[in-house]
């Protein structure tokens, strides 16, 4: 799918679906210029890191950690180091990295090579979500092109700098989106997260220092360096520099990816996405992927889309996955499906998560099916506080935050289900609202 709409686009300029992703087209759009300049002008690695730092670029995978700062954590000097790209995009609602690989894989490659140069790494891997085989193959093709043109491999552009890059294909495990589980997975093991600290910058892939960034983050790096940190910083708003891809799904007329500057009002994105389906009323929005607490319409309609504003409203910008729900949605049913997902995807390593996610699902399931018990709402709340902060990775928190968000804003719907054994929204209305839908692209 092509990008469906933009406001002041940067990353998606010139995207042309399946027709414009090859090396030649990327170079025509100014691709590999940033890498070429670094090599030709022999720009010191520290200066590249400083420029990325100064640009205010923050990680686009969910946590929003400053990219330049992350790079600066890597030990200086010689030694085996790695660059890893996280394209294990499986957070429900998120589908932006897939489109980056489809439309502009060379931007990711260029960003990774530059990162390798900046931190002194000679090898890199792009971990690609198992379900997108065709784009894994496309990325490998793009890598072949980049190798043949001297942008990847030994002695890049005659500089003496070597950087070998490969793709690693996942095979279906949400938890591998967590960076240390992803490293385990590249090492050929079960994707079970590691204790942190030590962080990957100290002990990463094959126990060597490793920088891991999201696909969109790497793809932004060439643009940041071409336009300069100050110009990038000027897009968006303070502490929220640049543009971001937002994946809009659910009850809108035009589900798809949109690139807008951070700080754009939610209402503007909703309009780009064609508004709520069938002229119905907006009920709620999950603003940053399924782990982010849900926000009712009246709150989200007043928000701008940036890390600070969404956090202030009580949720997270996360990966920029905006799940839109209209008035036909039963919030108990919506949460039931999300809770099933976390239960299914818990890696089983930590007891609070393995057992807790099962209980969260089973309790929401019984409420949804008319068998809720008085006190279930408080039981759910108590479970979340006993899971959060008590696990090795953030999956336990990710499973708990949606429960807390749904209960905070829609407690009455849960209570109604428990008391009456049925939903406030009649089943036929729910069904009609979420049935087969043909998007108006």
């Amino acid at each position, binding site marked *: 799918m092509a990008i469906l709409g933009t406001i002041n686009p940067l990353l998606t300029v010139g995207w042309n679906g399946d027709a414009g992703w090859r090396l030649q087209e990327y170079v025509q759009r100014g691709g590999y210029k940033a890498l070429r300049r670094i090599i030709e002008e022999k720009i010191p690695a520290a200066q590249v890191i400083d420029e990325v730092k100064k640009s205010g670029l923050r990680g686009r995978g969910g946590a929003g950690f400053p990219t330049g700062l992350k790079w600066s954590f890597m030990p200086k000097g010689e030694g085996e180091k790695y660059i890893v790209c996280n394209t294990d995009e499986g957070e429900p609602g998120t589908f932006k990295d897939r489109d980056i690989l489809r439309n502009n894989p060379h931007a990711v490659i260029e960003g990774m090579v530059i990162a390798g140069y900046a931190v002194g790494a000679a090898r890199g891997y792009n971990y690609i979500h198992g*379900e997108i*085989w065709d784009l894994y193959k496309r990325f490998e093709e793009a890598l072949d092109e980049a190798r043949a043109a001297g942008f990847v491999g030994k002695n890049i552009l005659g500089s003496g700098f070597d950087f070998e890059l490969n793709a690693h294909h996942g095979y*279906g495990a949400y938890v591998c989106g967590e960076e240390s589980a992803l490293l385990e997975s590249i090492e050929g093991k079960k994707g079970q997260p590691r204790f942190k600290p030590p962080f990957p910058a100290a002990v990463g892939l094959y126990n060597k220092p490793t920088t891991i960034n999201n696909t969109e983050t790497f793809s932004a790096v060439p643009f940041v360096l071409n336009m300069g940190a100050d110009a990038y910083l000027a897009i968006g708003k303070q502490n929220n520099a640049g543009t971001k891809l937002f994946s809009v799904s659910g009850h809108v007329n035009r589900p798809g990816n949109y690139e807008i500057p951070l700080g754009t009002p939610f209402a503007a994105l909703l309009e780009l996405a064609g508004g709520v389906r069938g002229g119905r009323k907006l009920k709620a929005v999950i603003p940053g992927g399924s782990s982010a607490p849900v926000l009712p319409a009246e709150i989200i309609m007043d928000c701008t889309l940036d890390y600070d504003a969404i956090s202030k409203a009580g949720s997270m910008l996360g990966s920029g996955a905006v799940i839109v729900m209209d008035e036909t949605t039963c919030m108990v049913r919506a949460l039931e499906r999300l809770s099933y997902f976390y239960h299914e995807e818990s890696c089983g390593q930590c007891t609070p998560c393995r057992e807790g996610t099962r209980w969260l699902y089973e309790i929401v399931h019984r409420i949804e099916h008319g068998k809720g018990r008085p006190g279930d709402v408080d039981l759910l709340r108590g479970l979340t506080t006993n899971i959060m902060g008590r696990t090795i990775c953030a999956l336990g928190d990710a499973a708990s935050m949606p429960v807390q968000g749904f209960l905070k804003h829609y407690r009455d719907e849960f209570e109604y289900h428990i008391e009456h054994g049925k939903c406030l929204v009649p089943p036929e209305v729910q069904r009609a609202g*979420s049935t087969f839908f043909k998007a108006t692209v």
Partner: protein
Amino acid sequence: MLTTESIQKIDREIAKYPADQKQSAVMAALAIAQEELGWLPSEAIESVADYLGIPPMAAYEVASFYNMYDLKPVGRHKLTVCTNLPCMLSGGVDAAEYLKKKLGIGFNETTPDGRFTLKEGECMGACGDAPVMLVNNRHMCASMLPEQIDKLLEELK
């Protein structure tokens, strides 16, 4: 037990990693074995482990952890339908129900003629194209309305 062609593919995967890190190729090697055999019997898992020089249990741990590996036989065409929330809001559940009715089977079942296996999937990272389904782990189908589902089933002999 693997064909020369599969072994060649596995060798290409091994070459991606440092020489002392052959285990890194286990995920790809298992996927290649599954592609050849249709599923992963324990002998296949063991021969992958042998080839990579790792304990069979290490390969089995991987095969049983990632959910796109099939440790039991499946039909010629495995259809995995996403019913997660974003898909659910755009007909993902209806698509699953439509398939169940049409094929006369439930999730994790195979049609008596061995043609189709139906699976419920988790997020495939394609929510904007909902309803989505994956055919044999490899081919993602977007906007699967009844007409498109009928066409797909017709094509998959």
